[in-house]
C-alpha cells in the first residue's frame, strides 16, 4: 500500500462508569487505509466500531480516556487534544453519522445547512458557498436547485445523500460513514453504496464504512476489519475473510448471515459478548467459540499475520503455523500484523 491517508495506531478507549469501574471499549485497534480505498469495520452492537471512529474524529465525551495515535496524511491529530483535532475535523476527516438523514434541522433549508461547515472553517461564504453547496448536491445526485428545499421535502434516501454532501463540504481526505444505509430500503441502500464507492474512486477519498451488515461490506469494500469486544479479531481482503477465514467468529458470523440463493443452514452464535467493564482473561470470544482450547482461557491471542494483508487474533493459527507460534503465545502484536 502507498502512504496511508488514515493511519490509526494502537487506539484504546476507556469510559469511566458512574459506578467508578472502567469500561475498556476499544482495545489496541490499528488500521490504515490509502486514498480511494473503502475499508469495512464490521461487528455487532457494542463491539466498539462506532467508538473507534468517534475517537478518530476526537468526538468522544470528556468521560472517555483515549490513548493511541491517529495520523491523517501524516499529521498527528489526537495528541494535542481538542485544539489539534479541531483543525482537521471536517476539513481532513469528515463523518456521516449514524442516522444522519434524520439530523437536519427541520426549519432551515438543506443548502443552508451544507454551507455551515464551510463558513465555520472560513473556506467559503456568501454566493461562493451557496454555489459550492449546489455542486456538492449535484455530486451526490441531487439537483442543485434542491438546495433551497427543506429536509421534510426530501425522501430518506435524498436526506442521506445530502448528509454525504455535507460531509464533503470541506473537501476532506477521509470519510467515516457510520451505518450509512441502516434504515434505508434495499434499493436506496444500493444507490447509496454505489455513490460512496463512486466518490471514493473519483475524489480519491479514503472511506471507513462502519456496519453490522457483512453483505454490505462484501459488496463495496476491498478490505475489512472484524471487531469483537473492542478488538479487531481479523482483518484482510473481503474475499479472504469469506473464503479463507482465520477466526472462528468471522466464520460463524458469515454462517449466521443468509445468502439469497444458498441452501446452507443459517446458524446463530450461542451466548452473548463478554461484559467490557470487567477484567477479561484469555480470548474474549472463547465462551462462544466452537473451537476453544485450554490456552484460550488464559492467554489473549495477538493479531498475527496469517497471509498477505491478512491477520487474525486466534490461537488456532498459532497451532497451525510454526512461524506464528511464538509470536502468538508471547501475546505481543507484531509490527507486520498491522500493515
Amino acid at each position, binding site marked *: 500500500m502507498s502512504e496511508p491517508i488514515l493511519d490509526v495506531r494502537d487506539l484504546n478507549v476507556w469510559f469511566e462508569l458512574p459506578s467508578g469501574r472502567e469500561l475498556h471499549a476499544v482495545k489496541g485497534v490499528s488500521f490504515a487505509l490509502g486514498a480511494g480505498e473503502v475499508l469495512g469495520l464490521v461487528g455487532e452492537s457494542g463491539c466498539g466500531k462506532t467508538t473507534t471512529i468517534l475517537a478518530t474524529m476526537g468526538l468522544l465525551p470528556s468521560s472517555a480516556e483515549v490513548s493511541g495515535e491517529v495520523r491523517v496524511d501524516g499529521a498527528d491529530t489526537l495528541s494535542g487534544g481538542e485544539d489539534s483535532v479541531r483543525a482537521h475535523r471536517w476539513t481532513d476527516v469528515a463523518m456521516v453519522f449514524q442516522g444522519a438523514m434524520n439530523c437536519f434541522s427541520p426549519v432551515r433549508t438543506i443548502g443552508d445547512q451544507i454551507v455551515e461547515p464551510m463558513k465555520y472553517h472560513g473556506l467559503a461564504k456568501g454566493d461562493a458557498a451557496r454555489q459550492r453547496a449546489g455542486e456538492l448536491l449535484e455530486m451526490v445526485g441531487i439537483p442543485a436547485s434542491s438546495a433551497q428545499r427543506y429536509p421534510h421535502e426530501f425522501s430518506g434516501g435524498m436526506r442521506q445523500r445530502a448528509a454525504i454532501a455535507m460531509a464533503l463540504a470541506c473537501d476532506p481526505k477521509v470519510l467515516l460513514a457510520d451505518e450509512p444505509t441502516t434504515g434505508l430500503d434495499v434499493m*436506496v*441502500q444500493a444507490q447509496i453504496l*454505489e455513490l460512496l464507492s463512486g466518490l471514493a474512486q473519483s475524489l480519491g477519498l479514503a472511506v471507513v464504512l462502519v456496519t453490522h451488515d*457483512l*453483505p454490505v461490506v462484501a459488496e463495496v469494500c476491498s478490505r475489512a476489519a472484524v471487531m469483537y469486544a473492542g478488538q479487531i479479531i481479523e482483518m484482510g481482503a473481503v474475499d479472504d475473510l469469506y473464503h479463507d477465514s482465520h477466526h472462528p467468529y468471522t466464520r460463524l458470523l458469515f454462517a449466521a448471515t*443468509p445468502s439469497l440463493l444458498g441452501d446452507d443452514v443459517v446458524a446463530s452464535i450461542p451466548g452473548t459478548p463478554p461484559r467490557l467493564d470487567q477484567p477479561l482473561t484469555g480470548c474474549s470470544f472463547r465462551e462462544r467459540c466452537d473451537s476453544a482450547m485450554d490456552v484460550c482461557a488464559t492467554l489473549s491471542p495477538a493479531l498475527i499475520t496469517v497471509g498477505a494483508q491478512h491477520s487474525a487474533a486466534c490461537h488456532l493459527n498459532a497451532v497451525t503455523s510454526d512461524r506464528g507460534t511464538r509470536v502468538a503465545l508471547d501475546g505481543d502484536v507484531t509490527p507486520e500484523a498491522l500493515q
Partner: protein
Amino acid sequence: MTDRTPPTSRAEHDGAHRAAPVLSVRELKTQYPVHRSLVGRLLGQPKRTVHAVDGVSLQVDAGEFVALVGESGCGKTTTVMSILGAVKATEGVIEVNGTDIADVSSRDMLSIYRQMQMIYQDPYGSLDPRFRIRRTVEEPLLVHGVGSSKRDRTRLVSAALESAGLRPADLYMDRFPHELSGGQRQRVAIAAALILNPALLLADEPVSMLDVSVRASVLNLLDTLRRERNMAVVMVTHDLSTAGHFADRIVVMYLGRVVEEGPAKEVLRNAQHPYTRALLSVVPQPDPRDRSTPQTLTGETPNPIDIPTGCRFHPRCPMAQEQCRTIDPTLARPASVSISGHRVACLLAT
C-alpha cells in the same frame, strides 16, 4: 395460453382434502384520508386518499410460513395491521379460521385475537419496562381468562418461556426487560404471543433490530414452533435473503398490491416481475465473489396518493411498454412458469 385466474380463485391450489386456510384475505383495501386544513376545505381542495393497501388477496394455511416483502411504503405493514384489526380495512374480506372479522362484534373480537397474535419489530419498545417478564407473558392469560389459578398460570408462563428458548424459565421470570439482551427480549415477546397457542402469528420485521449472530436463532425458533404447533406465520420483512431461507412462500408487494407471489425458492430463482428482479439484483451477497450487478431503479416508490395509471410500476420499470400505461395487470400464472402457485402481475410475463 395464459392462465389468468382471478386472485380469489383457488383453482391453482392442489390437494383435494385441504383444510380451510387459517387466514384468507380477499381484495383488501385500506385507505387513509389525507388531512385538509379548514382553509384548504374552504378553498375547495379536493379530498385525497392514501391507498396504503389497494386490493391484496392472501391465503395462509395452517403450518405455512409466508413472507411479505417489499420496500417501505409498499403496504406490507398496513396489510398486517388490517388483518390484526389495528387499522380498519376500507374494503375487502378478512377471514380468520373461516370467520369474517367484519361480522364479529367488537366484544367478540377477543375470541379472534386468541387465534391471532403479533410480534413487533422493536423488542426494546414492545415490552413494558416496568413489568417483570412473568407479568408480560402472563397478561394474555388474564385478558382471555385462561388458567384457573395463579399456580396454573405460572405453569403456563414457564412452559411458554421454555418453548421460546428461555431455559430454565425460573431464571427469567422475575427479571425486567432491561436485564435481557435484544434476542432474549424478542423471545419473551414470542412467549407472550404463543402462550395462547394461536393459529396465526403475525410478525413485523421480527429480527431487523437484532444482532446478526442472534437473528438466526429467533427465526429458527419461529420455524420450529410453527412446525410443532402447525401454526401459520406471516412475516413482514424487507430482507429477501431471510425470506428465502425461512419462508415457504414469498409475497412481493409494490405500492399497495401484490406483484408476484409463489414458493420462496421459485420466486427467488425464477422471478418474473421486473420489480422482483430489480429487488433481487440489489440484495448484497455475503460472498464477495457473488457481487451483484445492481439494476438500481431510478427514483423511489411513488406516493400512494397518486397511483400511476395502468401498471403501477410502469414509471420505474425498465421494460415498460405502451400498454403498461393503460392496462392494470392482474395476478396470474404465466404460461412459461410451471410451478403452481407462482403468480405475477405483469403484462409482459407470458
